[in-house]
């Protein structure tokens, strides 16, 4: 059968194959060498001897490989040994504050008697009293808004920032000409759940903001060079912006006693933040040193009085219908803590913040204004002028306390 078809092609194939083999086997080389050595020839053409060129190339390649390995070893040489991380140099600061933009006030409290005003109105009036959002945001700014979206709680439980307040800030930022507005936070509970159930995702999205969930890849480790915080994963989205607006919620915290503006920067960090609690005041101060926001707007529409920061029971909260807007995060907390009946002098992190020059605990020096809505929605706007003495300290403390009673009569 192979006669016709295979004989031709197959035969050739075989010869070709065997020829190929002959050239490559060891024995064939030996045979070849044996044959050639018997021939009397000059050394240059004697295949048994190394040609000079061959000798040179082989020698050169051997030397080259040796030299290259030596170079590589030298380049990647590791002496070993170990040195712990050292915190040194200046503290890292991300300062988003606006300079040279004075306004009529640096500290505004908008407050309403029960059902006197919506959260949106309160937020707007508080920011307007500082000179409006245009004082802080320029056209084309990339704005990042950092509410507290830490917990898997509904708005009524007041563990997260009120979604209406967040939406109002988003709208105002766009009105002031912001190019883009991002709303984000690094949550404690499962983020998707926190963002959705807090209502902030819906409201911020509807207001036109881009709502970003804290994905692992958006954190990058950096050195904060603080007193207790040094190397931590930092949420890049929050620090890669033109303007940052801090929109915390005022609430009780079992360890820090009160949490709002300064403590809200816990959301800048990734990783296992649970170590921070061992020196909570110092870490709050470190974070507030690192993050200097453009504007702080404290949501105190509903405050949590007990079981903070997570709460979970509406009975732990109370409506206070207040929004604080300020450029000073220390002052924001110094006043805000009175809303839950806490005294600023009990909060060590406020003292640290003031000592580090982050702001002042005496909010009365910031030309404070109060915007009070009565039950019918009528607005009174006036400067809060409280004399600077011991009795007045009590009076200042009382201002926050009185908001706690929903039926409180507005001053003036």
């Amino acid at each position, binding site marked *: 059968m192979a006669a016709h078809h295979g004989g031709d*092609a197959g035969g050739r194939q075989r010869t070709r194959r065997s020829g190929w083999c002959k050239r490559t086997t060891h024995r064939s080389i030996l045979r070849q060498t044996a044959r050639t050595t018997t021939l009397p020839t000059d050394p240059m053409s004697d295949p048994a001897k190394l040609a000079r060129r061959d000798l040179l190339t082989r020698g050169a390649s051997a030397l080259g490989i040796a030299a290259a390995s030596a170079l590589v070893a030298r380049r990647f040489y590791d002496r070993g040994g170990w040195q712990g991380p050292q915190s040194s140099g200046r503290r890292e600061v991300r300062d988003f504050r606006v300079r040279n933009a004075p306004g009529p006030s640096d500290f505004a409290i908008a407050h309403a008697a029960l059902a006197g005003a919506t959260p949106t109105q309160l937020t707007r009036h508080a920011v307007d009293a500082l000179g409006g959002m245009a004082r802080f945001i320029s056209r084309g700014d990339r704005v990042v808004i950092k509410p507290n979206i830490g917990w898997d709680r509904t708005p009524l439980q007041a563990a997260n920032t009120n979604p209406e307040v967040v939406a109002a800030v988003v709208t105002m930022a766009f009105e002031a000409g912001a190019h883009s507005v991002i709303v984000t936070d690094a949550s404690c509970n499962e983020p998707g759940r926190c963002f959705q159930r807090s209502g902030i995702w819906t409201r911020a999205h509807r207001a036109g903001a881009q709502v970003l969930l804290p994905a692992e890849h958006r954190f990058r480790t950096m050195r904060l060079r603080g007193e207790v915080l040094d190397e931590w994963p930092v949420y890049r989205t929050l620090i890669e912006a033109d303007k940052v607006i801090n929109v915390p919620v005022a609430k009780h915290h079992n360890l820090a006693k009160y949490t709002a503006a300064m403590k809200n920067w816990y959301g800048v960090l990734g990783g296992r933040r649970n170590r921070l*609690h061992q020196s909570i005041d110092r870490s709050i101060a470190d974070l507030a040193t690192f993050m200097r926001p453009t504007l702080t707007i404290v949501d105190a529409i509903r405050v949590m009085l007990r079981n903070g920061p997570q709460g979970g029971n509406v009975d732990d909260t109370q409506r206070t219908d207040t929004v604080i807007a300020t450029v000073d995060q220390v002052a924001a907390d110094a006043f805000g803590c009175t809303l839950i009946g806490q005294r600023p002098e009990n909060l060590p992190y406020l003292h640290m913040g003031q000592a580090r020059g982050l702001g002042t605990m005496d909010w009365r020096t910031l030309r404070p204004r109060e915007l009070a809505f009565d039950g019918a929605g009528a607005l009174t706007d006036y400067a809060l002028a409280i004399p600077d003495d011991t009795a007045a300290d009590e009076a200042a403390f009382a201002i926050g306390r009185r908001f706690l009673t929903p039926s409180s009569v507005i001053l003036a």
Partner: protein
Amino acid sequence: MSESTPRPIPWLGTIGVIDALDALITPSPEPTPEPRATARKRPQEPVAREAPTARATVLQQDTPAITATPTAPTAKPAPSRWRTLWTKLTARPKRPGSGLPARKSIVLLRNARRLSQAGFLLLFLFLLVRTEFRGGFAGGATIRMPYPVEAFLLADPFVALMTFLSTHTVYRSLWWSVGLVALTLVFGRVFCGWICPFGTLHHLFGWLMPNPKGNTTGGRRVEANKTRPYQKAKYYLLLGFLVAAVFGSAIGGLFDPICIAVRAIGLGVLPFVNYVTGRSLDAVSSGNIRLIQHATDGTRDALVATVLQPRQYFFHQTWIIGGLLFLVILANRWIPRFWCRALCPLGATLGVIAKHALIGMEKDHAKCTDCNLCLVHCQGADSPQGGVKWRQDECHACFNCEAACPEDVIKFRWLPNRKSTQGSPQLDRRKTLVTALAGACALPILRVSDTLDANYYDRLIRPPGSVAERDFLERCIRCAECMKVCPNNALHPAFLQSGIEGLWTPILIPRIGYCEPSCVLCGQVCPTGAIQKISEEQKLGNRERNIPHISIGTAFYDQGRCLPWSMATPCIVCEEFCPTSPKAIWVEEIDVPGREGRMVHVQRPHVDPKLCIGCGACEKVCPVQDRPAVYVTSVGETRSRTNVILLETENYNRT
């Protein structure tokens, strides 16, 4: 010249020419437009039925064809490259033998089957990827899966039958499986050939990586696709599992193909893909170049929005699950669809039903030339070739055999005559008896070891809404839907924590993730009711309406490791994260002496076992990194009447 040499049917002999080498030696000047078609040319006279598959005969048959091949020098201009490509793409290889074309309807059916397989595989993967909570701006405060992501399991008659035998109920949507039974009664095992995503995977890999020692259409393939006795194994397995189910164990879920697909792909393949992608993008963006970082961030956002998970998930001992998947896929290299033929209990269930199917095969044995083309393409190893009886219970109804048959032997018909059909596996009576005995003995053997009634593992924390352990083992089919859907990566396949019997049942490992208090998704996706469908209110309880909460365990302090308890350091992250209201963790304000004698004010945490729900949030967030100072054990779980601490629980008071 060499190209025009006809090729013999490859599996009948090894003679032939090696194209590449011959082409080198004798380059043929004239273009040869249809090498494949000519290669398949065979004598046109029908070959006698008696012709054996001996090589000699084939050679004789081939000889005239070889001698008759002329080299045709043509004066035609060479066709353009595009034209050649087009003819190559559109040309159908000429069929060997009589070359009778398959019926149009069969070709259509075969193509429809391929589409259906691809579609159902994609649907399965889509549902699997979507078996997770993805928040959104449109979502409200109540979180549920928008569609039944566990649909494939709900339509699984093996799962339904097994849990029916163990619980004497058909749980909720498991009645969907009746639809699949009906489908099988009409069309046979179309589920295996047309729908099953795991079967499609095997089909795909059987095609992608054929036997290394024969080619895709070689003799080894034919041998591998003949009906073999090992195919009975799946019937014995099925029997054993069903008997075990009668005695109260749904352990057969370990072998259910849908369960395996969800488990192995959901817990192994998807996290693997996530990991590799994440690490690769990390490596690319590590150079701190802003532009590249933006690009990788954008890529990752897009991937997370579509196929990837928003975070990296880790699963307990999942390498074993992944490894087994790898092995069973690898088996396709030697025996195509080894899993489906030899082991699949769902296939066996459907095989038993398929015996009564309305559609079936008729064969005209006289016309068969033993070309074995049907066997080359057979998926179920169900003897489609002439001379033997077709095995209806093994057939996947893929219609490859009829589409391949060039001799008009195989015909699928409605209500066929059953002359050449065998519908039952003809199990050996003694083996059947032994298998049933093994199934009956399995459970007592497993239970006399110390996992359930004695020395219950303290960390065996079941998902919230789970039924009591015995009922749980009657229901849990280890499908891993709950583990896939868990947003906190809290649920894991148990390895030996609850013995062999509890292999790959869900346990909660709080150190990896805690049970999100407002989440009830695991119960929602559980197809068999091992985890009941509870509401948020049932889970968290409601004091005003006198609804008690569901507890899955109780937290305990390891005071020697706790910072406030033993190191005079303030901490109480556990208390901060405790989700109950009032908090189950309460603190004792106390001044403790520090090392220098200075008093340090700390808050020492305590657990109130009445309020603790065992969610494990405290254990998850405890800063004592390696072995946490607070940990959860299963004691006090609501589902158990024996695994309790307190004399009274709210549960007893209620009734």
